[in-house]
């Protein structure tokens, strides 16, 4: 129980950091903290494979991509005021109402957890083998669709880069670093 509340405190602090910190890099690092805490929470929930994937894919690959883009674009911690003044209080009110509503529903519909032995037997430690067995039997269609989605994503990303490269003219885009070097 203590573990849960410690992890929950760190997670909420990280989430608050994401939505309040002005510097994008700081906010991204706060999100990394939240994601790593989430990975530890997965371990306490017997989802070991997902914990590993969370660290490798989320805290590793996706956040590196975010930090890369933040540094590439050199985004300032500008922020400033939202154009519509009532948006901010309305957003916080919506958030409080939604969170309280879902939490209240969860506590009103509370179920008894099965015994620890039953959980351990059913989840099989959340290992890659157990997960793969379910994924390749019940979720084959979803698995195939994810494959198509990833292919679409690759094609989309490449076409985005390719088009902006053609607008500038290939010579200019690919010749720029060399010229920088010679000038220095």
């Amino acid at each position, binding site marked *: 129980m203590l573990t849960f509340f410690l992890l929950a405190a760190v997670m909420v602090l990280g989430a608050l950091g994401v939505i309040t910190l002005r510097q994008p890099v700081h906010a991204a690092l706060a999100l990394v903290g*939240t994601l790593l805490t989430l990975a530890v929470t997965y371990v*306490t929930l017997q*989802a070991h494979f*997902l914990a590993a994937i969370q660290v490798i894919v989320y805290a590793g690959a996706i956040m590196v991509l975010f930090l890369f883009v933040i540094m590439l674009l050199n985004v300032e911690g500008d922020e400033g005021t939202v154009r519509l003044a009532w948006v901010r209080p309305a957003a916080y009110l919506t*958030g409080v109402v939604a969170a309280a509503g879902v939490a209240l529903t969860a506590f009103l519909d509370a179920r008894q957890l099965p015994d620890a032995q039953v959980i351990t037997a059913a989840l099989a430690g959340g290992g890659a083998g*157990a*997960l793969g067995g379910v994924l390749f039997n019940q979720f084959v269609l979803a698995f195939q669709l994810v494959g198509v*989605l990833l292919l679409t994503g690759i094609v*989309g990303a490449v076409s985005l880069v390719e088009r*902006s490269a053609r607008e500038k003219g290939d010579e200019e885009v690919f010749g720029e670093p060399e010229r920088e070097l010679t000038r220095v």
Partner: protein
Amino acid sequence: MFDASVPTEYYVALSALIFALGAVGVLTRKSAIMVFLSVELMLNAANLALVAFARGWAAAGTEIALSGQVAVFIILAVAAAEVAVGLGILVAIFRYRHSTDVDNLSGVRL
């Protein structure tokens, strides 16, 4: 490490809180990158609830219980694709406008 003393509703409440914080971030932040980070927060909140439900439904057998964890796995793959394309679009918009302020992006709509 395995903790069987925390009921599922605690995890759902925490997940709801994180999701609400992410939603507030999406509504209040101005930079498109910060909006993206908040969306990641919301996706992860949903993942936490799914993993907690997977444990809560352990009595229904391995296949049903692990469905929750498989859903999280699929969401992870979708999130990775979404981030790759989304950040690509962001970089393209930044090259064109020299800003990622979402208030100035009304020209992106159809």
